[in-house]
């Protein structure tokens, strides 16, 4: 049994259950509530953006480590068992460059569409309080389906990458052909997996828009996904550059 010294009472009301009731109600830092029961979308957006930035740090670390492995492996000589000498076995991969440039353009346009979708829904969210006033009409204001364009072009990019893989196989570069081709497949696949994650979130955003969730809530999802999408584009540029210039 713990030895408890006698409690000292001072007339300070504690917070929590049974508190003196002099504390102000919840505000700010705690939850998303503004105290009046309505969710604070601003706080939610800030939190998700912060979470995204932190999450992208770990994605960056994944690609930093793959790049390190790429550079190290590229510089290593290999023992050739026939001549018993060390030789350089890094074979530059014959990338289907035209196809990859088209894919890059697709992803760029997709990223621009994501940005337009983000700005569009930000405007809609800003107008939402006015729209909710009875008798005020701002027109339908649905606007162009930029989100749909983003998803379609994103899927187009993935199909294009798949075609690039087929093209590589036709040229004789399979996953295990050489270390260089292993890295081409590995880096593009890892990027594709991350992009698929983004597409799933965008589809989720589209699904909730059908369920008549408040535009502010949808805006949070679209905003964060758009930033993620831009990052995926920049990441692809980086990977493409690495595979092309350091081949």
């Amino acid at each position, binding site marked *: *049994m*713990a*030895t*408890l*010294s006698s*409690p*000292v009472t*001072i007339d*300070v009301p*504690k*917070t*929590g*259950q*049974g*508190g003196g009731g002099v*504390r*102000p*109600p*919840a*505000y*700010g*830092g*705690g*939850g*998303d*509530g503004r105290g009046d029961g309505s*969710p*604070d979308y601003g706080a*939610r957006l*800030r*939190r*998700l953006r*912060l*979470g995204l930035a*932190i*999450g992208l*740090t*770990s*994605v*960056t*670390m*994944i690609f*930093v*480590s*793959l790049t*390190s*492995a790429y550079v*190290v*492996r590229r510089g*290593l000589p*290999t*023992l050739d*068992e026939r001549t018993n000498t060390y030789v350089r*076995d890094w074979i530059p991969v014959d990338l289907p460059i035209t196809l990859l440039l088209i894919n890059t353009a697709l992803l760029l346009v997709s990223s621009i569409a994501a940005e337009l979708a983000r700005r569009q829904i930000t405007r809609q969210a800003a107008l939402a309080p006015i729209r909710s006033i009875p008798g005020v009409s701002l027109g339908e204001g649905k606007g162009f389906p930029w989100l749909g364009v983003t998803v379609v072009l994103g899927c187009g990019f993935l199909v294009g990458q798949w075609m690039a893989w087929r093209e590589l196989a036709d040229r004789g570069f399979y*996953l*295990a052909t050489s*270390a260089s081709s*292993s890295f081409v497949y*590995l880096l593009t696949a890892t990027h594709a997996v991350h992009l698929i994650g983004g597409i799933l979130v965008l589809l989720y955003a589209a699904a909730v828009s059908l369920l008549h969730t408040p535009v502010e809530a949808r805006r949070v*999802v679209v905003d964060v996904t758009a930033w993620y999408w831009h990052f995926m584009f920049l990441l692809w540029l980086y990977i493409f550059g690495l595979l092309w210039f350091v081949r």
Partner: protein
Amino acid sequence: MATSATIHAHAPQGFIRKYIFSLDHKVIGLQYYFLALVAVFVGMFLSLLMRIHMIWPTAVLPLVGEIKPETYLQLLTMHGTIMVFFVLTTAPQGGFGNYFLPIQIGAPDMAFPVLNMLSFWTTFVAFVVILAAFFVTGGAPLHGWTGYAPLSALTNSGPGEQLGADLWITSIAIFCIASLMGALNFITTTLDLRAKGMTMMRLPLTVWAWFVTAILGLLAFGVLLSAGILLLLDRNLGTSFYVPLVVVNGQIMGHKGGSPLLWQHLFWFFGHPEVYIAILPGMGVASQLLSTFSRKPIFGYKAMVYAIMAIGFLGFMVWGHHMFMSGMSPYTAFAFSLMTMAIGVPSAIKTFNWLGTIHGGRVRFQTPMLYAIGFVSLFVSGGLSGPFLAQPVLDIPLHDTAFVVGHFHLIMGVAAIFGMFAGTYYWFPKMFGRMMNETWGRVHFVITLVGTYCIFMPMHYLGMAGQPRRYSQFTELAYLQHLMPLNRFMTYAAIVTIAAQFIFVLNLFWSMFKGPKATDNPWEATTLEWTTATPPPHDNFGGYTPVVNHGPYEYSVPGAPRDYVMQTDPATVASH
């Protein structure tokens, strides 16, 4: 994604939503804790088998029969992996961090409760997958917890290296994903959900430790995940990232040109920060408890914060000291050696500040405090052999001997476990509303402290005398015969120490239901978890958000009406 607003409004009622797929960080924290408790008993059982085998190599044991050399390596691999990932990474951060970080900063929940639930259940899946490795054809892998290639990268390099090794690496990859989700949540929560007045320099040192640990996890686990994916590709799809031209049983394998050292670099870039992921939360708990039970402010709060940061930063600079034997350039080894010894500086700052905190205090020697002192003792004992191993000239004879085993078991194994025991005895009243039995707590402490020293201190002698690690049998080696009495003594100590852990488990579960009721603040501590009800309500503070006016360790403040000032007390209680 649901954020805390939608979650904490109403406590869920159904059993499944309340206890299984709960979004409440407190329930998730307990889930992590009990997962680690199961894991630690599995890991401990494996170590017991190993210690018995060392002194009675031909004994036929229950469940496993006679231990063959390859069985010994399987036990060793699974013991290390389960302990490092599912105990040392899971309980201090996932368990206590999840439960107390939000409460200590005055938040109603984690920033992303759904993600929090997902990270626990992903960890759970990883645990199931690694346990499955015991039961597949060939059994568990035998490449050690460090999984060095090419042994780990070839499917025909030994029993257990088929499906067992695939399950092992898959489990670790899943665990990495879970840890990344957890780290993301911890960092966002600490940065964004602090109560009004809770500035970064008013955070309890526990929160600082969990925060920095999360940053380490965020940067380290991604690297291990990449390394693991490369290993899976090498094993199953014929790539050659890690495997050079290699002949196994007279057969030339299809691989060519890979580098086993590439795995070592990637693994240890994760592996060394992992050591700090295991120990930093223990340092946080020790700081918190030494101050509370000495009734004195922590000595040098800011120095403690900067020391935690410095340890975290330097932790990423020293991975090469695990690879002095790999044939690295002496210049590289020198740089790694220097950086490693530099970690001694912030570690010493922490140690002296802990001693300074106790010095002259009115120390209350209750069980949590005993464990905190035990932590410092083990940290010093285990830490002092660090600078030895940091020097290549000493590491070369000591590497791959029992010396290294003794070193890291004391500092990252037992010290971290003592941090968990300290946390358990300290926070048990808050978590379960009852007190643990003090007498049995002290008995448990004395046996565990003396027992672990008896197990791990002699390993230093063994190592210096040349007893190799990872060898399953020593009884036939003439030059080690005079060490057998010491080996037997260590095994007896291990049996007694392991038996004593049942005292802890009985105390834990008995007190949960039968222990005396705890008050809201039984230790007269100052941080926010002690301002709320016991156990805390679903939203932690019963509809209020606390306002913080004080630092976390204001004990024995002159002029204050009692010897501690809670963080939420009015600013005027002790303005000077």
